[in-house]
């Protein structure tokens, strides 16, 4: 039996100094996602329709394309951070937890990459046409 308190075991080791980093980034991305979604919903509602030509013309403008790219990065980052907290809170079995975190990271990065490439293809295609 170790004659040592839990506090004694960790005293002097110092903290990782990054304990609140994920928490802070989740708040940061929540605010940026909030602002970008207001722009996104108002823009969609102001479009005359959501047919292919209208949507592609709209995304073809540099300002809209960049705002959409920022929205994608902000949203998927927020998804990654939020879902990670949910998984860590409810999945206690270590193997399942690591597996789900792996899937979460793959899913968010792949989905964001596909969305970013799609916006770039539309925006650059517009400029060349």
């Amino acid at each position, binding site marked *: 039996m170790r004659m040592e308190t839990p506090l004694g075991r960790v005293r002097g080791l110092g903290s990782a100094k990054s304990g609140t980093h994920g928490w802070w980034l989740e*708040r940061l991305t*929540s*605010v940026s996602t*909030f602002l970008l*979604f207001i722009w996104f919903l108002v823009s969609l*509602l102001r479009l005359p329709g*959501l*047919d*292919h030509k209208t*949507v*592609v013309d709209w*995304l073809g403008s540099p300002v809209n394309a960049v705002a*959409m790219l920022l929205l994608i990065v902000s*949203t*998927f980052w927020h*998804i990654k951070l*939020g*879902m990670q907290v*949910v998984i860590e809170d409810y999945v*206690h079995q270590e193997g399942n937890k690591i597996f789900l975190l792996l899937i979460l990271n793959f899913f*968010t990065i792949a*989905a964001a990459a*596909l*969305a970013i*490439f*799609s*916006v770039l*293809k*539309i925006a650059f295609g517009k400029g060349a046409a």
Partner: protein
Amino acid sequence: MHRNPSRPLSPHLSIWRWGPHMLVSILHRVTGGGLSVVGAVLLVWWLAAAASGPKAYATFADYADEWYLMVIWIGLSWALFQHTLSGLRHLVMDVGAGFELTTNKFWAMMTLVGSAALTVILWLYILGTK
């Protein structure tokens, strides 16, 4: 989990009378999860279809107009409003405000009322201009 099963657990979910703050708390996670999966898939599908060309976009648009997708669009818009409003409430609580019992309960209720109202207004506007 490093829990000693012979130790008693503090009674939690089953013993508390349900209040709006508990409902809003779990709804924040449920709506966040729904938006993360269903919302993200539909957003990426929409963008990828638009980038792939008119034919792929028409396939997306045909699905998007189906009645069961309409149910999902309305559900997603409600989830977005609910998650946004309770998210704003969380930002206020993060600075240490709004923890008094009546204030906390009032704003929890307001996120539910607000998300329902915003969803109705949004769809009346969309269906009205269509």
